[in-house]
């Protein structure tokens, strides 16, 4: 029954997205009509987006050139600076976790699941530079839909369990702590991961940003969504993983409502965009070096 009402809400959203002008009017009207609370809980429905550089690096960082393509894309692909979103500044990695971190840093972008259009996991999905939508019914499970890679997750409003298997997005369990939505996500594990040039990574992990920061399948991610007025959510995520970190650590940031009248998720089905990165090495050797040069000349 819960599933049905979520589906109905999703279908309604989809149908409304069908006609541009009608949707814009309906959407503006709907926003003014939207109740502040649903079944006594804050109404989180809407299209939301972070506005920071956390997806480049959760830690404080200076501006810098693109790690792999500064020659082709120059300042367009460069990294904007950021003050960081971690409470206390840095991620408390254990010494044994640094080897893998350094391996990631030696293969930025090339080994980043985002470049391959793999699912982003939690919390990264929340602060990628794409909007996401929260679909909330009454006293019901919630749906979060992300523009990036058509990712989505159901927040199951029930007690935390051990999920049956590891998945890229993990399994999310939610509860209300007063007016705050608290979501616990477990078992984020990509398993065997295809990397560029025919390399297979047998024990994939979830990347947290383009700087190679990561969590492992044993991590517990606890997110908190607190409405701060109509157009803001204060968002935080605490990552606990005794395998990797000396203590739990927390990121926090505001999420902003996309308030333009025609705010909606568009499609970013990125699998085709990652094909040359992942499989370009299978092209004829003579053709491979010519491709970047041709692109640069355009």
């Amino acid at each position: 029954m819960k599933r049905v009402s979520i589906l109905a809400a999703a279908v309604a959203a989809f149908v409304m997205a069908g006609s541009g002008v009608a949707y814009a009017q309906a959407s503006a009207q709907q926003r003014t009509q939207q109740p502040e609370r649903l079944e006594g809980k804050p109404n989180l429905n809407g299209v939301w987006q972070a506005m920071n550089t956390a997806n480049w690096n959760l830690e404080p960082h200076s501006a810098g050139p693109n790690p792999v393509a500064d020659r082709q894309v120059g300042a367009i692909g460069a990294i904007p600076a950021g003050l960081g979103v971690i409470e206390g500044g840095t991620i408390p990695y254990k010494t044994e976790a640094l080897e893998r971190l350094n391996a990631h840093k030696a293969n930025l972008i090339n080994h980043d699941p985002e470049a391959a259009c793999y699912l982003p996991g939690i919390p990264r999905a929340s602060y990628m530079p794409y909007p996401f939508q929260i679909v909330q019914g009454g006293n019901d499970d919630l749906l979060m839909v992300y523009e990036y890679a058509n990712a989505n997750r159901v927040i199951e409003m029930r007690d935390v369990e051990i999920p049956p298997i590891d998945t890229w997005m993990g399994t999310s369990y939610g509860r209300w702590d007063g007016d705050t939505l608290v979501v616990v996500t477990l078992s984020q594990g990509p398993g065997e991961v295809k990397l560029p040039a025919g390399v297979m990574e047998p024990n994939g992990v979830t990347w947290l940003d383009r700087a190679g920061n990561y969590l492992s399948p044993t991590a517990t991610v606890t997110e908190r969504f607190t409405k701060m007025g109509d157009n803001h959510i204060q968002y935080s995520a605490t990552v606990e993983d005794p395998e990797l970190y000396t203590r739990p650590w927390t990121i926090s940031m505001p999420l902003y409502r996309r308030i333009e009248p025609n705010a909606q998720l568009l499609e970013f089905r990125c699998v085709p965009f990652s094909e040359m990165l992942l499989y370009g090495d299978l092209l004829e050797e003579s053709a491979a070096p010519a491709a970047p040069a041709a692109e640069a000349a355009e």
Partner: protein
Amino acid sequence: MQKKKWTAAAIGAVLAVSTAGVAVAHHSFATEFDRNKPIRLEGKVVKFEWVNPHSWIHLDAQVNGRTQRWRVEGGAPSALLRRGWNRNSLPAGTEIIVDAFRARDGDTRASAAEIRFPNGRELSLGNPTTEAVAAAANRARN
């Protein structure tokens, strides 16, 4: 080198199908597997892949006195989860017996409706099309 590339291409093709074209492999029993080429595989599980659109059991089977690595196609992860499968259902090293249908291209791949354990217990692989083919084969035998 050539071989490595073929392997990479094959893996690439599998991944591409698993991320992009979910519908393709759901309707492909007849195009990918041959109902007239049954095979019995007995051996130890190497790994179990929870991938869309179909899961895969990798096992080292004894075929004609030699050990061969075979891949057996099961149902979609969601179908298996509905049947109560989880991460502990088929650990590496488990002895299994599989009555499967071979791939048309002669590769060491096959599709099966269920697996059996040496103690006689059976476990459905949640593969409706293959189940129908297996049931038809059983009716033809009886």
